[in-house]
């Protein structure tokens, strides 16, 4: 980092203002974006930092969502524990699947992540007693946030807005941890592996082990995002684990720019708003969205953030 601007804090404070804009719709949109931003950021730990293309990242998002929803709804476990459990369970599955995945490289790695994700999807789709099968789980309760009433200024808000504050705080916290991870020596090693895995091996890095660690961390944060999404969405469904969801998060990351820390979050923001605006006006949204994406990807090969920072550099030089 060349200049120490506390971006996380700035964005966090700006996002905090959304409920005061007056429309519940903006709060709802902002919650969606914040959660998906975390999901995309977790993928970027693999994609942008370690150079591993995962086609099955939605599996961990879905596992987190199911874990949290099942614990909260069926077992009545409080949100704090369910949320933590969602991350741990997703991380555990990432470990189990990752052990196999990191044995392969490039497209084989990608295909294996996809295979594991589809297996997980099939289990969620079929295991009626636990996951609710095709219909999933609906009516996941909002966490009990009555404590927030005691905080001055927040007492007047309705539960969805209170939940937004919780989401924002948890996502910001996750961003801080992710930033710490990528800037730590461990994170730097991941970058080395991305740039040149053979060389990394030669200088004595246990490449597979590092890749596995990145895989587990990415799965863990995806699980946390999934837990929040399940509550926000009031239900979890097998769709959340389907490969289309994995593709969606991959697009977010590429669109925003996998080369920068904030890229995936910007991608999540842009894709969510694009989707919302376009589907509101036409049912031929795949055509419009596809065209917009093609243009964006061709004009900004480094993603939106990549293009912006290139422009900023050029301005500074001029």
């Amino acid at each position, binding site marked *: 980092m060349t200049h120490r601007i506390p971006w996380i804090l700035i964005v966090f404070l700006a996002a905090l203002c*959304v409920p005061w804009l007056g429309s519940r719709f*903006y709060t709802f949109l902002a919650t969606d974006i914040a959660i998906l931003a975390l999901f995309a950021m977790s993928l970027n730990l693999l994609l942008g930092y370690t150079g591993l293309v995962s086609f099955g990242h939605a599996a961990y998002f879905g596992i987190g969502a199911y874990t949290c929803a099942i614990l909260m709804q069926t077992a009545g476990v409080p949100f704090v524990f369910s949320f933590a459990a969602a991350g741990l369970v997703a991380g555990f599955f990432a470990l189990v699947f990752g052990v196999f995945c990191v044995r392969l490289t490039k497209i084989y790695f990608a295909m294996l992540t996809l295979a594991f994700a589809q297996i997980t999807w099939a289990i969620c789709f079929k295991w009626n007693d636990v996951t609710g099968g095709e219909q999933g789980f609906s009516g996941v309760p909002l966490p009990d946030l009555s404590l927030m009433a005691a905080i001055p200024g927040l007492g007047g808000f309705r539960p969805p807005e209170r939940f937004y504050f919780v989401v924002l705080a948890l996502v910001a916290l996750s961003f801080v941890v992710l930033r710490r991870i990528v800037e730590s020596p461990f994170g730097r090693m991941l970058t080395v592996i991305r740039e040149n895995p053979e060389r990394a091996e030669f200088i004595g890095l246990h490449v597979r082990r590092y890749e596995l660690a990145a895989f587990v961390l990415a799965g863990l944060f995806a699980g946390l995002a999934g837990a929040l999404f399940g509550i926000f969405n009031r239900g979890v469904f097998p769709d959340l684990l389907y490969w289309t969801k994995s593709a969606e998060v991959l697009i977010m990351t590429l669109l925003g720019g996998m080369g920068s820390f904030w890229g995936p979050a910007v991608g999540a923001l842009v894709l969510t708003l694009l989707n919302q605006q376009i589907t509101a006006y036409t049912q*031929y949204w795949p055509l419009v969205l596809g065209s917009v994406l093609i243009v964006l990807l061709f004009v900004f090969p480094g993603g939106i953030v990549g293009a912006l920072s290139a422009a900023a550099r050029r301005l500074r030089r001029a």
Partner: protein
Amino acid sequence: MRVRRLLGAACAFAGVLPFAAAAQDIKVGFPMILSGPGALSGEPALRGAEMLVEEVNAAGGVLNGRKLRLIARDTKGAADEAVRVAREMILKDEVNFLVGTFTSAEGPAVSPIAKENQIVFIAPVTKTDQLTAPDKLHPYVFRTASTTTIEGRSAAELAAKLPNVKRVATMTQDYAYGQDTAKAFLDHLKKLRPDIEVVDQQWPKLGEADYTPFINAQMAKKPDAVFSSLWGGHFVTFAKQAKPLGYFDAIKNNFIGAGEAGAIETAKAMGSDYPAGIWANSYDISNWESGPQSHKDYIARLRKFTKDENPSSWPITGYVAMQALVAGIKKANSIDSDKVAKALLDITFDAPTGQITLRGKDHNANRGQFWGLMVMDPKYPFAVMAEANYLEPTKFMD
């Protein structure tokens, strides 16, 4: 990020403005599958709702001239997207009611959203019993669709009357809808005909491409009759593979195809390949000769509205759901969801197929389907339902 969000907010706000001008309209949100393969059914369901809106508005609207306005949004066939658009329509477009959703995942997913926003939600297509199960039922959710229980039991009523049937088998997909219909069918059949034996149950997966192993395994058990709930394109794939293997001949066409295997879309898709002689169901048919005048009039209007001589069987789903809503608004004399929800309990209205009642105890309609023998009629280039029978389900609903 903040700037972008403000930009988005500005765009969203600009989108709201035109709606604010026509505050007199009663806005109905219609989340429906409008893209992908499901659009083949979702799109016509929306057309049916549009037709009713046009008719009601042409007759002067409701509540002293207030017009109905339909706001349709694509759910992409995904439950989370259905939740997203439902919320958006409630929060941004400020719709007064929700009518819509298609799959058995979408309906139960949107139901809690209707509950927490206290908005009446009527499901026109979703059949799963889960939607109105006692632990999921709330004052605002209603269904004008048939249910898996009704569908399975209707098929059982039919099967029980087939001559010389002692050995029964099922061919249903291995997920909630297939499992629920098969169970409803077998449980009811055992009650009606304790002498019947269940000899085989095949569970192909949803989206199976090769049914041959399932077909062969089932034929080896020599059933006299088969119940299936393969729907839409799945039935087409299955029947095309089963016919050359002599499957339908082996069971003497004692095949009962639920899941709208008798729908005109399916018949059109298969043309002369359709296994004529089987029994199947459909939400609607355009050749109900013995039906009431109201249905004949409805079909005539639908032909004009859709400019299709053999209109789809799906518009009636959207049409009837909107009819229920309009009846509720009129009875409540208000667009307040709490009042309309109360008015909808035990309400009876005149659907094209006859009177329909939304039962107060479980918010389900006594919505039957057409069941009949599928035959090739020289008047049509595809199979049609002969002597169609609208099975009124009241007597075998719980």
